[in-house]
Structures are given as C-alpha cells and as structure tokens.
C-alpha cells in the first residue's frame, strides 16, 4: 500500500520511450468501377512521428477528420498501417501477424469512445470484463469471477453487478465497465479514443479523474485522443496537435497552452470558451476561413496554408518539417508564433 502511494505522487516518474511511431501512414484506398481499380486514397494519417514516454499522458487533439482516431487504431493494430513503423517497448509491431500480436495485446489496450456501442448488449458485465482473461488465457488466483469483481470495485462499480447487462447502466457506468475491461490484463499503454466525449459533462470529470487515479496506481501510459481542449489541458503531460493527418505541433502541456507556436494551435486555443466574461473581451478570437480541405487531395506544401492568415508563397510549395523550436517543443511551420517569447514568463 505504501509503495503504491509513493508511486502515486504527483511527480510521476516519466521515463524512456514506451511507444515510438515513425513516419506512420494510413491511406484508405478509394476503389471505383467494375474492376475496383484504385482511383485515389484518403490520406487519413500521413507521416506521423512521435513518441510516448513511459508513464506520461500524450494527447492527440484536432478537429474531426484529422486522423486522430485512425492513429489510435493504428497504434493498437486494429488496422494495418500503410507505411512507417511502430515500436512498442523496443519491439517493432508494425506488421506483426494477428497471431504474433496476440500476446502483445496484453500490453496495449484501448478505451473506446461510445460506451453504448463498445459493450456487447447480449453479454453480462461478468462476461464482458472477464473476456480478456478468457481470450488471453490468463490464470487468475481466485477465478475469473473474483478477478472481475475486483476490477469492478476498482473502477467504482458495485461488484454485485456482475450478472447485469449493459443496458441496465448509465453512460458513465458503462464507460467504467469498458475501463475495467481495459485494465483486466494490466496493460502498459492505454489508447483512450475520446473516452469522455460521449458522456454528460457532469460525468466527464468523474471518468477523467478515475483515469488519472488508475494511472497513478498502475503506472499507466495514456495516449488520449480528444477534441475537448479543456479536458486535454487537465489530463495531459504533452499534447500533439493534428491537422489533416499530420502533426502540427508537439509540446508540453503548459508550453503548448501558453506559448502555442503553430498558427493552427493558436486558432484552436482561441476557440476555447472562457467562462470569465472580463477576460473573454480581452482576447483575440481567430476565426479560420473555409473548411478543412479533403484528405483525398490535401493541399501542397503546408497543409494548413489554405486557411492560415500568415501563409506566404513558400507555404504552398515547401512543406515545413516538424522541428525543435524550443526544448521539447516541436512545430511544423515556416513562420511560427511566440518564437521569441520562449524565454519570457508565461503569457496570461
């Protein structure tokens, strides 16, 4: 117990890279005609390079259609990458077969977005949460039932709900059941695909706090996929901003929220509602023009140049690379914002 509380201290040990994605790509082919010829591809994820450090929470943010969910599904190998490389704990898992991947699935698990769709309506809670043990042939000390009940207790559910069906639970409770299932195999990495976006705002905080408590207790590493920037600010250690299948900016949470460098991040952050009316009037709201371009035929050069107010000729022709602009702060932009403010104190 004492060791647990020690490791649960606020300054979690953030260590080496647990998961590394290098130039990760996923193109969904578009087939037309009688012969199903490939006429194009949706470039959902197009060259992501990032790493997830042991014990941290990395958030992937971006608007819908930017490839966040696809990235999550690539990391858990639910879909096959088109290109690039994924290493988990130093092991290349990019193109592992179903069979070779199976034992590794204990280490990398997923929390799903929609708690109404992620639980099989015909299975009892006991069956759902016990499925990982059965599927992975894990022997439990006191039987599967006991293990499931311990898990239910862990996520704040009544262990006597073992024989109940998902439809008897609320959205928040269902998400807890999903989390219990995720935790069953004691994974190292959890990819959480919008874990709270389907929930009531009042429930969101509970589930977010549960995820944080579990992270402290079991030394979990999270890849959190989200679009709610307030939630992201609350849970993340680092944040990666995605736009049209590319990473625009990666930075520590405070650095990103206080000194965003990429114009897209600046625009995103300016859209976060501020509850304080006095502060609201002082800030500059950036309204982006136009829609997100199609990922079938993304813009040349910088993918954001069609909507960027700082765009110049070079942005259309030359793609900016994701480079270190400050320690631990990477952005892919020819004309980054806040570059000179790095050393100054945080801007309110």
């Amino acid at each position: 117990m004492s060791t647990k509380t020690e490791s649960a201290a606020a300054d979690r040990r953030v260590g080496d890279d647990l998961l590394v994605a290098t130039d990760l790509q996923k193109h969904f082919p578009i087939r037309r005609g009688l012969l199903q010829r490939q006429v194009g591809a949706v470039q959902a994820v197009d060259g992501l390079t990032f790493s997830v450090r042991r014990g941290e929470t990395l958030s992937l943010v971006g608007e819908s259609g930017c490839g966040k969910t696809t990235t999550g599904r690539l990391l858990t190998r639910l879909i096959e990458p088109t290109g690039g490389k994924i290493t988990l704990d130093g092991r290349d898992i990019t193109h592992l077969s179903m069979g070779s991947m199976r034992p590794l699935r204990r280490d990398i698990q997923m929390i799903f977005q929609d708690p109404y769709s992620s639980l099989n309506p015909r299975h009892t809670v006991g069956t759902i949460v016990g499925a990982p043990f059965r599927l992975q042939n894990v022997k439990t000390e006191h039987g599967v039932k006991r293990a499931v009940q311990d898990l239910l207790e862990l996520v704040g559910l009544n262990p006597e709900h073992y024989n109940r069906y998902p439809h008897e639970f609320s959205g928040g409770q269902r998400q807890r059941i999903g989390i219990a299932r995720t935790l069953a195999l004691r994974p190292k990495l959890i990819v959480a695909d919008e874990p709270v976006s389907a929930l009531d705002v009042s429930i969101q905080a509970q589930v977010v706090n549960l995820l944080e408590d579990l992270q402290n207790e079991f030394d979990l590493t999270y890849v959190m996929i989200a679009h709610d920037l307030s939630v992201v600010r609350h849970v993340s250690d680092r944040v990666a901003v995605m736009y049209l299948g590319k990473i625009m900016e990666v930075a520590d949470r405070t650095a990103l929220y206080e000194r965003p460098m990429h114009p897209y991040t600046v625009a995103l952050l300016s859209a976060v509602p501020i509850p304080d009316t006095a502060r609201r009037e002082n800030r500059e709201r950036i309204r982006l023009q136009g829609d997100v371009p199609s990922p079938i035929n993304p813009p040349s050069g910088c993918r954001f140049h069609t909507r960027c107010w700082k765009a110049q000729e070079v942005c259309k022709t030359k793609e900016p690379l994701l480079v270190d602009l400050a320690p631990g702060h990477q952005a892919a932009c020819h004309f980054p914002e806040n570059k000179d403010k790095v050393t100054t104190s945080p801007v309110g």
Partner: protein
Amino acid sequence: MTAPPEVTGSAADADPEAALQGMPKKAIQGRSLGQIAWLRLKRDKVAMAGAVVIVLLVLVAIAALLADRVFDVVHPNEFHQDLIDTENGTLAPKGALGGMSGAHPLGIEPVNGRDILARIFAGSWISLLIASLATLVSVAIGTTMGIIAGYFGGWVDTLISRAMDVFLAFPLLVFAMALVGVLPDNVFGLSPEMVRIGLLIFIIGFFNWPYIGRIVRGQTLSLREREFVDAARSLGARGPYILFRELLPNLFAPILVYATLLIPTNILFESALSFLGVGINAPTATWGGMLSDASRFYTMPHFMLWPGLAIFVTVLAFNLFGDGLRDALDPRAR
C-alpha cells in the same frame, strides 16, 4: 473457471449489513434482453393468442401422429361409402352440411366418404413438420451464409450475395415439379412417403435461405462496425470467437422473428405443392391435397372450407406470433 459457490456464501457472512438483516444476500441478477422481451411478449394478447393456437396445433399434430398407431379412432383414409348418396349421381354425402354428424363432426368427403376432421388432423403433422424442418434448413444455411458474407465482405460477400440472387430468381415451382417427376419412389430404403417429405423439406428449405441470409448479412454488416467487435479484436479475439460469441447472440432476435414468419410461408408453399400434385402422394392426407380434391366439387364449397380454414388459422397464428415477437424483441422498430 468460475468461483466456487462457497465464496459467495462466505462473502455473505462477512458482510455485516446482510448479517444484520438476517437475510441471505442474493447476488443481483440482471434481466437479460431476452427476459425483458419475454415480459413484453407476455403482455401482447394477440401474440399470446397466436402462441396458444400454435401450441394447440402442435399438440393436435402429435396426437394425430400417435392416433394413427395408438388410439383406435376414425382413420383418415377409411372409406365410408355407406354415407355417400349414390342415387342422384353427384356422389355427395348424405345429410345436410356435407354429412356433418356426431361421428363425423366436420362431415365427410364426397365420393369416398373419408372423415374430414380426421384428415385435417392427419394433415396437420405433415404441414407443421415440413414447414418447421424446412425453416430449420433455411435458417441454418441462411445464417451461416449471411454471417460469413457480412463479416468477411469483399469478394466473399459478392459471391454469396450473387448466389442469393440466383436462388431467389430460381423458378422454384417448376424445379420442384421436375424433381418430383425424376426422383424414384424408393431411395435409401425409405418409404415413398418419407422420400417425399424429405424432398419437400429440401426443396422448400434449400430455396428459401436467401431471405434469412439477406437479413443476417445486413445485420452483420451493421454489427461488425460496432465498437464491441473492435474491443474483442483488441483483446486478441480470433474470427470464430467474434462470429459466434460476439455477433451471433445479437443476431438471435432477428433470426427468431424471421424464422417464425417463414414457417407460415412454408406451410402455404407445401400446401401449394400438394395442391398441384407434386407434394405428398395420395392417400396421405395433407391440407393442400384436400383443397385439391375439393376443387373438383365446386358445387359443394364447404369441402374446401375446412382445409382452407386450417391453413388460414395456422398461418395467421404464426404471423401474429411472429409480429408480436418482433415487437417484443425490438420495440424501437415499431
């Protein structure tokens, strides 16, 4: 794999609250969707009436099957020519209303004077047996094909879907007539009657599976995109586990409903085949065959009434029950 029962017992003892109340703590038992559907079905009076009629019909069919051998009652194939009016040339039964009497409550047939009630009873087991076994064949093939097509998609789906189209476009009636004509009476040492029953089950069952197949395929297509399938895959589940443990339980409701609705269709189809003379051979009583016989006596329509009524009531009962079942299993689809 489950915990031994003592564990729950000791847990109940350890719980002070339960001990305080002096009551054995019972584990909270959830109601499954099936149980909820059953509660809903029980409240549906029309569907329950249909169910009662179906149960009665099944009992009658079993009784008729046994009566043939065990009980000494009026035999469905026994002639009662003493009751036939041979003098005016119509060969109609003597007496009013087709010869209704205490001994023959629904009257007797013209010409031979066979008891109509006995023949209706005797025909019931053939109708129900063929219809339900043919449905079973359809469900088995349709579910397997539909789930495979829906889950695997791609060229497998194309192949199976086109096969379904071919089966649906097949001139079934012509095929049945041709097959009955070609097939010898004695195959595998079975009696001619059994061969015919088997043949009808095969024809009806084997050509009706695309109806079930299409429904199962459609349901599978939507189910396989649900996140619980991804959840199972991310836990390392293999294809068969996903198909049989995750998807199949969710397909049970639509399969049950369409099977219940397929039975009356099959009853009608069997009657039609018997009516056309390619069904069960005379003298074995079938409802379709009785209709066929009665059609020659159009001046005495009441002989058509009884087998027609039997088919009507049976089909109606199954349809009402099937509709009620659908409402009970999926109240949102109303």
